[in-house]
């Protein structure tokens, strides 16, 4: 099967291809002409490496991710398992928000910061599957955990403004894994980050 372009993402092209006779996804971080070559090469290599290793690390944390078949650091390509299903972005429900909260808490319990926790990076299969670990890193700091949570909160209040009251469901899911005390502490930190935002403090 010849690889066909499925989606042109922000930083990578997604192709549908084949691996060992099964449908697979090839994610290629193609060079960006507008970026200086040295900067571009560093970013592409680093993110490909991070993505491949965190996809596996997340599995041990209890989070479903696609299986990695093959990694090519020179061309910044990852071939991974094809996951059937829709992006949560287009079919957001309170139940899915709860599940996403659980996933975030499980990652954080293993000190994994996802770095790009948005609804478009979740796929609804039989279970929820999380993608896009290019910006992931390890950290124990509450501040970094809060940065992750703040991002998805921002997505809920900007892109998903029509689906009201979804963030509390996410928090509920998160607290079911992390515990209320820890969740409150993180939310406190999220508020602090928001207050740091430009023109957020009313004088």
């Amino acid at each position, binding site marked *: 099967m010849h690889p066909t372009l499925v989606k042109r993402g922000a930083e990578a092209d997604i192709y549908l291809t084949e691996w060992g006779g099964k449908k697979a996804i090839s994610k290629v971080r193609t060079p960006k002409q507008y970026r200086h070559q040295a*900067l571009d090469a560093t970013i592409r290599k680093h993110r490909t490496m991070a993505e491949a290793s965190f996809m596996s690390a997340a599995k041990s944390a209890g989070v479903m991710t696609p299986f990695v078949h093959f990694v090519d650091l020179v061309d910044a390509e990852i071939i991974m398992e094809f996951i059937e299903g829709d992006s949560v972005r287009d079919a957001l429900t309170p139940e899915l928000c709860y599940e996403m909260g659980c996933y975030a808490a499980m990652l954080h319990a293993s000190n994994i910061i996802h770095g790009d926790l948005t609804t478009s990076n979740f796929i609804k299969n039989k279970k929820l599957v999380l993608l896009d670990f290019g910006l992931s890193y390890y950290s124990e700091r509450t501040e970094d955990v809060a940065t*992750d949570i703040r*991002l998805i909160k921002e*997505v809920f209040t900007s*892109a998903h403004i029509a689906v009201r009251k979804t963030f509390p469901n996410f928090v509920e899911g998160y607290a079911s894994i992390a515990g209320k005390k820890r969740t409150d502490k993180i939310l406190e930190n999220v508020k602090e980050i928001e207050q740091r935002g*430009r*023109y*957020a403090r009313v004088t």
Partner: protein
Amino acid sequence: MLCLGIESTAHTFGCSMVNSKGSVLSDVRDIYKAPEGEGIHPREASRHHMEISSIVLQQSLQSAGVSMKDVDIIGYSAGPGLGPCLRVGAVVARTVAGFYKKPLVPVNHALGHLELGTVLTGASDPLVLLVSGGHTMTLAFSHGRWRVFGETLDITVGQLLDQFGRALGFASPCGGRIEQLAIQSAGKYLQLPYVIKGNDVSFSGLLTAAIKLTEKFYTPDVCYSLQETAFAMLAEAVERALSFSGKREMMIVGGVAANRRLAKILEASCSRHGTKLFVCPLKFAGDNGSQIAWTALQEYQDSKTHVRVEDSFIKQSWRLDTVDVSWRR
């Protein structure tokens, strides 16, 4: 309907006349120039605004060929911005509105950038990159407000350029001089921190690192590397927003929109997604009275919103995503 718009959030004091078709009849402004190596001192800038205000207003009326009697409403920038500067604009607006008995409309300055940008470029439903000394944000309109998709977590790209320029001994605004210096570089890239957090960016570490590099390396190379890094970060933030929102149009507004290199980089990232790029005309990229007048006009025409002189206000902190935009559907 004719609107007088008064702008005074930072270094610019401007008065403009705009009619309900969105035609700018006059746009007069006077910019406070900081001494070499210094930024905008709020007290000094407000003193400049005070001294220049009546002349700017007069010139604006004259070049539009109108008198105060012809003006139907008065808009003023109420925030966000520097308190002392905002106060000057507000005082001028209150005085004129009180004396001539005209409705007074407070305007969010950032909203002004977006609204004027859309009418001038003809973009209908764009993803917006607002880049200036006060803002660095990606925005899209949804459910009655401009929603923030991503933004800077610390300083703005305008501040990055200004503070870096000041360290080199330039006077704010420094973006133009940095762009000129960068062109002199042979394209030698010095490594600098590239920070993307989800849809957000952070520039403070980049600023510190770039200033440090100036001690050892050729200044044009540092300027070049600073621009390349910062603008690549903005381009990635834009691409993320485009890919998520699926918008077919993209618009860039704010003072930093005047940078040609940034426009070129964004052109490349937009073409990757088949998105049409609209760049706010150079003359209206930076702060001006027209953005205030046009926004006030739309708000007043849609809902007759205005404030009494005694209830008029300024807000130094006034986030764009807290403003209801009733006229845009």
